[in-house]
C-alpha cells in the first residue's frame, strides 16, 4: 500500500486517527508520568481548533483543520487552497519544514525556531497547551505521507 499524499483527504483521515489514538506506548515510555498526565488533562479539556497551514503548496496555501472536543478529534480535513481558515489558532509552516518534520525533525525545535508559527490567535492561551501541541506535531510527523507529487516544486 502506498502512502497517502501529503495534504490529501486520505492523509487527513490518517492524521485524525493517529491524533485520536495519541502517542503510542513506546514513545510515552521515555517521559515522566507527570508529563503524560498533563498531556491527557489538556487533551480531555481541549475545545479549540487548529488550522495548520502549508504556505507554499504548488496549488496555493492550504490548511489542515483540526477541531478538538471531548478528548478527541471531532473534525480533521484539508481546507483550501483558497479562503482563510477559521480556527482558534491559525498556524503557518513552509512545505520544506513540513517535510523535515516528517523526516524526523524535532517538534520542539520546529516551534522554538519558528518553523511553525501562530499567525492568528492568543499566544499565551495557545502556550498553555504547548506540550500537548508539540506531542501532536510529533504524531502528525509520524503519519506516513508521500511528498513525491510535489517533489518538482
Amino acid at each position, binding site marked *: 500500500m502506498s502512502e497517502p499524499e501529503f495534504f490529501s483527504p486520505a492523509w487527513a483521515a490518517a492524521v485524525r486517527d493517529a491524533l485520536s489514538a495519541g502517542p503510542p506506548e513506546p514513545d510515552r515510555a521515555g517521559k*515522566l508520568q*507527570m508529563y503524560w498526565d498533563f498531556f491527557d488533562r489538556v487533551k480531555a479539556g481541549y475545545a479549540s481548533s487548529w488550522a495548520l497551514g502549508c504556505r507554499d503548496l504548488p496549488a496555493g496555501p492550504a490548511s489542515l483543520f483540526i477541531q478538538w472536543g471531548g478528548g478527541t478529534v471531532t473534525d480533521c480535513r484539508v481546507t483550501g487552497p483558497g479562503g482563510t481558515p477559521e480556527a482558534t489558532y491559525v498556524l503557518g509552516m513552509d512545505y520544506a519544514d513540513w517535510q523535515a518534520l516528517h523526516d524526523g525533525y524535532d517538534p*520542539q525545535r520546529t516551534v*522554538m525556531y519558528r518553523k511553525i508559527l501562530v499567525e492568528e490567535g492568543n499566544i*499565551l492561551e*495557545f*502556550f*498553555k497547551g504547548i*506540550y500537548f501541541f*508539540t506531542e501532536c506535531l510529533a504524531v502528525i510527523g509520524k503519519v506516513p505521507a508521500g511528498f513525491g507529487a510535489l517533489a518538482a516544486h
Partner: protein
Amino acid sequence: MTERKSPTAVLHEGPRALSDQQVRQIEGAALKEVLDVDIDDVIEYVHKDMRSLPDYTTLYRKYLKQRWDVYDLDFAQDKIDWTEKMTEPERQSFLAIASGFHHGERQVEIELPVFMIGAGEEEKLHISAQIEDEARHTVFFDRFYREVVGLQGGDIMAILDASFPWVSETFVGPFGLLAYQADEVRRNPYDERARVRYGTTYFLWIEGVLALSVMKVTLSYARWRGFLPAYYTGFTATCRDESRHVQGGMKYLQDAVRKDPTMIREIHETLRTILMLAGVASREVIYEPLGWTQDEVRMLMFQQLGRKLNDVGITLPPDLQAMVSSVQPVLAGG
C-alpha cells in the same frame, strides 16, 4: 577556590549582606580574577540594586568595564576534571542542567534584537550591550561542549544539535513562548503590551529565575569540588553580566507598570502561562551528584522569583501564588 562549603549552604542561610569591599571585588574583577569570586556573592550582587534600579546608562557603563574575552579562557584543566575526576553520574547530572543553558543562551541571543527597535535611546545602549553579552555566552557554551564535553561539529549549530538530546521536552515552554512573543514584537515593535509580555518571559522568568538557578547549582558544585576552573570563571563572569540584564529588565517592567498600572495584567497573564508550564516535568533530573536535592532546587527557584517580584514591587494574585508552589525543578537558562 579554597573555600569548600556545601553547595546548598547559602540557600538555607538566606540572603546575605555584601560589604563594600565585596561589591568592589565583584564589579572590578578582571576575567582571571573571577575564579576567586564567590558565586553566592555574585547572585546576591544581582539583587543589590533591585530596590533602586540603576538607569540604563549606568548599566551600559558597567558593561564597558565588565565585558570579557571568551577566548581568554583555557579549558585544559576542565577537560582533565571532566574526563578523569568527575564521575559518570556527576557528568550526566551536569549535562542535564547545562544543556538547557547551552540552548538557552543561543535563544536569548537571537530573540533580543527585535526588542531594541521599540526601546528608548539610552535603553538601546544597554540592549546593544546585552546582545553582545548573549552572543559571547553562546560562544562560551559552544567552547565548553566542544573542548570539555567533547561534542564534535563544524559550527555552532552542529554543537547545538549534538547537545539537544540532553534538553528536556518542557524546554519548549518558556523558550518556545519567547520565540513567539519575539515574533509578536517583531510585527509590532512599538506595542508596549506585547513588549511587557515578552519582557516578563525574557527578563523575569528566563533570566531572573531559570538562569540564576542553573548558575547557582552548577557553579556551587564546581566551587565545592574545586573542579572546572574555566567553566567557573566564564560562567561566574556570565552571572555578573546577568546582573546587568536582570536589573535592566526589572527596570523596564517597573517603569512600564509605573507609567501604566494596567500593564500589571500583562505580567500576570504571562506568568499564568509560564507557571502552568513550569508545573510539569518530562524527565527526572538527578541533582544529588551535584550536591543538591530536588526540593532544594525548587526552593532556590522560589527564592529567585520571590526576590525579584518583591523588590520590584509586583504582587501576585492568589491563583498565581498557588501556582508558584507547584513549580517543578527543571532548569534551563539564557
